[in-house]
């Protein structure tokens, strides 16, 4: 499924549009940055409640096309700025991690 369709199906708010046509085959959910650094794979969507600039630094290094922030988290201004520079899609869900993961899993499993 492409990112655009995931955004629609999960009813996500998009704060930085990028990679909308990217084919998404998987996701990784973690709030521990070194866990993501070590275990997430390129092309996956990252689901997290972290909202600072190290998130986009890691997403960019790992070729992660989109980050879903859970529970209405608000990205820091410099994170959003960095996302624009690095072309990373920043999405926000009103729901907590469990619900976001469950719904996304159903869509792309």
């Amino acid at each position: 499924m492409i990112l655009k369709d995931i955004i629609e199906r999960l009813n996500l708010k998009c704060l930085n549009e990028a990679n909308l046509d990217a084919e998404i085959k998987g996701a990784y959910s973690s709030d521990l940055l070194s866990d993501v650094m070590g275990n997430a794979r390129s092309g996956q969507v990252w689901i997290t409640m972290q909202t600072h600039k190290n998130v986009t630094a890691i997403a960019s290094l790992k070729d992660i096309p989109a980050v879903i922030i859970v529970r209405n988290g608000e990205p820091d201004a410099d994170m959003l700025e960095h996302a624009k520079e690095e072309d990373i899609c920043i999405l926000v869900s009103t729901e907590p991690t469990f619900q976001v993961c469950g719904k996304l899993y159903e869509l792309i499993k």
Partner: protein
Amino acid sequence: MHYSFDIERGNFTDAGHASASVKRTLKQLNVEPASIKRIVVALYEAEINAVAHAYGGKIDVEIDPEKIVMIVADEGPGIPNVDLAMTEGWSTASPKVREMGFGAGMGLPNIKKNTDELKIDTKIGVGTTLTMTVYLNA
């Protein structure tokens, strides 16, 4: 080719800029993606450790056709027990650092996994130097 970067004391916001710059260079040099992935994981973790656990420092990167050698040298407290520090899950990260999502105790194990050679020189009260080598086109 040789590149140097400064790691600023306490500056989490810009941590990762050396890794990003090295990634761009390696892409331009057409280094294979699998090696680039390993290199950036190792360098980023070392960069963050120099900010999270020490008072900043310096990065030196030497790229030649066979290998990349990354030396991350910090001024800091040093590591009292390197074997313990290498253990997955071991961390002395401060509450502030943990709140940001660091402190899983996975950085050094990530570095070990993603490099071909890792040397840690550390002196209590002086600092820590990591020398990380990844062989290219291997």
